[in-house]
């Protein structure tokens, strides 16, 4: 089946090139007096042009017609200019110019990810077809969705995807199935933990992989990974850090030279992944801890919302494993500080963070997020963790983070965000609606004093429950971002991204 698709693609490309060449030749015949040149030009041009055109359409299938027209226009200009020169000196220039426009117009149209287009039936159909092809079951939405969020998925934890898979699953590696289940049930949560688990699972996949005959490892392995990624996406939408990790792995795999032996290639890939985890996650955490400890002084009260791993009397919020790590390190360095852990329903991740801190011997206070304005006058710093840092400087993190940053700003308490660079992503977003994750709405139901108010919420037609997972914090609430590259302001994120791209 895939062979047929590839052949179909090649045919399309050839057709396109033919069209372009025809148009070009028709345009070239227009200017008079250069009958000798057109035959001379198309020959060197015909060779570099298809060469430059072929990779171009292959890379960017979504290039719009407008781009092609602009390219053609640029080419015509170049040709006219070269005809004016009437020399071989003009030849390399137009070919150079030909190559330039395609590369300038490269990143024009990005495809919208599927998981924010749930209200578009065509997109949903396309996804269903793709999953069918990959033999992965489609997960259906659950419950009444609030109208503001009808463009997002809402799954129930009680209906994991694995119930619809046969045993043993022939398409998906068991390590991936286990990982998907862990994601959807919330056993593995937190962006660092999820990325590390993903990379370990991929290591297992690579170890068990054997290249089928007549196939190249670099291309076949990438194709094998695609259904796994779709499956994991169905279990729980991928996070930004996971997206970056997957991009890295795919790049590494496709860079494997074809003459490399299978065993060597596998060992190389495993080492790559190991190094990625070590550099981007473990060592980054150590670097961030080193920088942050300079910011923690004796007698501090840090607020910690648990999803950030840090909070020093600082308030730590919604648990971040990173912030947790930083606090423990700081405590070992004999800094004297107090921590306030701020927790929120329904996940209550703060209790785990609290346990870890108390075990280390740090003196802690515990409150719920509604009491933040009561406790904030005591706080000297707020440490937050991040799920991702967006290219316009916004911080995407656990829901509630922006609220804590807002109240801290109102009380003039400095807010520090700790984030590794592998979580930086190129998306931009200004509010928490356009791209978010909806968790199981049944989590909001609580039984107090024997009464469960929302037990039959499904039966009431005008009642909806909203369980958001992420929110975005505007950069004016954040005073400093601590990364493994140093301490930067929130607005320098695109600079770091650019530097990273150039490096790679």
């Amino acid at each position: 089946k895939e062979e047929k698709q590839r052949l179909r693609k090649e045919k399309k490309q050839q057709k396109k090139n033919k069209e372009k060449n025809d148009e070009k030749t028709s345009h070239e015949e227009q200017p008079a007096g250069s009958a000798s040149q057109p035959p001379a030009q198309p020959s060197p041009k015909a060779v570099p042009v298809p060469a430059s055109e072929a990779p171009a359409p292959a890379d960017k299938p979504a290039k719009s017609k407008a781009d092609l027209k602009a390219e053609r226009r640029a080419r015509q200009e170049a040709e006219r200019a070269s005809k004016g020169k009437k020399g071989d000196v003009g030849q390399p220039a137009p070919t150079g110019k030909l190559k330039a426009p395609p590369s300038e117009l490269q990143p024009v149209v990005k495809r919208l990810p599927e998981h924010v287009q749930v209200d578009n039936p065509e997109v949903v159909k396309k996804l269903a077809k793709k999953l069918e092809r990959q033999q992965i079951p489609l997960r259906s939405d659950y419950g009444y969705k609030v109208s503001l969020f009808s463009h997002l998925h809402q799954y129930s934890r009680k209906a994991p995807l694995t119930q619809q898979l046969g045993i043993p699953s022939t398409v998906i590696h068991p390590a991936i199935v286990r990982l998907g289940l862990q994601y959807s049930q919330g056993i593995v949560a937190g962006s660092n933990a999820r990325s590390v688990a993903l990379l370990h699972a991929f290591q297992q996949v690579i170890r068990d992989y054997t290249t089928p005959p007549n196939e190249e490892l670099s291309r076949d392995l990438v194709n094998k990974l695609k259904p796994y990624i779709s499956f994991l996406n169905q279990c729980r939408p991928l996070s930004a850090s996971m997206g970056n990790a997957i991009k890295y792995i795919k790049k590494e795999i496709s860079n494997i030279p074809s003459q490399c032996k299978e065993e060597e290639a596998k060992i190389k890939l495993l080492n790559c992944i190991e190094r990625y985890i070590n550099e981007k996650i473990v060592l980054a955490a150590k670097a961030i801890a080193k920088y942050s400890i300079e910011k923690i002084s004796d007698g501090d009260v840090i607020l910690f919302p648990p999803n950030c791993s840090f909070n020093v009397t600082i308030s730590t919020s919604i648990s971040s494993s990173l912030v947790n790590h930083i606090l423990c390190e700081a405590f070992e360095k004999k800094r004297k500080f107090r921590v306030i852990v701020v927790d929120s329903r329904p996940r209550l991740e703060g209790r785990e963070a609290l346990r870890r801190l108390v075990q280390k011997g740090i003196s802690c206070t515990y409150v719920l997020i509604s009491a933040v304005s009561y406790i904030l006058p005591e706080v000297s710093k707020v440490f937050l963790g991040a799920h991702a840092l967006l290219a316009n400087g916004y911080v995407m993190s656990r829901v509630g983070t922006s609220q804590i940053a807002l109240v801290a700003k109102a009380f003039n308490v400095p807010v520090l965000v700790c984030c590794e660079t592998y979580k930086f992503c190129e998306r931009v977003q200004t509010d928490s609606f356009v791209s978010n994750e909806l968790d199981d709405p049944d989590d909001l139901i609580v039984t107090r004093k024997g009464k469960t108010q929302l037990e039959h919420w499904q039966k009431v037609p005008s009642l909806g429950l909203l369980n958001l997972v992420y929110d975005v914090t505007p950069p004016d609430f954040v005073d400093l971002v601590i990364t493994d590259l140093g301490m930067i302001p929130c607005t320098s994120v695109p600079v770091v991204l650019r530097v990273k791209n150039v490096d790679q």
Partner: protein
Amino acid sequence: MRRRHNHPDVVPNHFHRQHTHTQTPSCPVSPLISSRFYTTTMPAPDKEIDLTERIEAFLSDLKRGGSGTGPLRGSAEMARETTALLRRIAAQARWSNAGDLMEIIRTEGRRMTAAQPSETTVGNMIRRVLKIIREEYARSRGSSEETDQQESLHKLLTSGGLSEENFRQHFAALKANVIEAINELLTELEGTTDNIKMQALEHIHSNEVIMTIGRSRTVEAFLKDAARKRKFHVIVAECAPFCQGHKMATSLSEAGIETTVITDAAIFAVMSRVNKVIIGTQTVLANGGLRAVNGTHTLALAAKHHSTPLIVCAPMFKLSPQFPNEEDTFHKFVSPHEVLPFTEGEILSKVNVHCPVFDYVPPELITLFISNIGGHAPSYIYRLMSELYHPEDHEL
């Protein structure tokens, strides 16, 4: 069952036996009883015993209803009960002049506020009744002093010594007048929710998204009344740890209003789509600030950030002449078990847990107060206070 107090020392024991809770030692014995040690007339002791019983029952109710979810009864009911009790005191207690009555009410009032300091409605009603008594007395005297209750500078200079009364003159018609005035007050109290409801359509238009927090009966009535004519969407923040917002949401959705329940952590995230924030409050303070359920300050800050108007629906009996600067009396805490349950194990002994019930919201964050007498800006609250309460009654 007739009880007779024969011995002075029997009285305190008997008195104690009536209670279901331990009386605080600082609470004085009711002056009604101490003044009756040596009376022998039959009907008066019964009435007064009856009255004492009622007062004690009311006090024990106050003490019991102190959990974070709110009192056992709503504030409006509390106000009505207090006023009814004060009317009974005015009718049945023995007093010969206004000063006596005011003294009796003040003493009882002090005991009531000591029983549950966070229930400010009780104190407010007592101050209203005291003001009524002053007014009726002044009217009986025939002086036109209702208009300048506050001493004007001119009067201070010209009138020489304190023109102020000990309220010792006896007027026969005073009792009837006072009871009539308190009846008027009761009628006003009964109509407060309706008066606020009637203003709903002025403030809510169609296709709006309104946000609220926790549970307020006033806001519930307000929104339900608007829903009769307009279609809008309500987002309710659940207000952990007691989650009163859930009950509010079920009640609103049963009235056919599109309701969504969100967690407290998502308040800022959804605020960008909200058109108005309408909240209730426990108390309106003298500077125009609020003492409201915890989480309201965050809600107010988020609304300010997005320039969303914050409307407070508060009837006039919630207006209290207190200021927010007393740190130790402002906040009320309940059991930390609500936040970190005892099932968490041994870390409980090493961790401080706070569970405050109220939040202070400064007046700069509030856009409008809607009360039973209309809408006001927060800067006008001090003026309303001077109309409702006499400055000497601010400290009971």
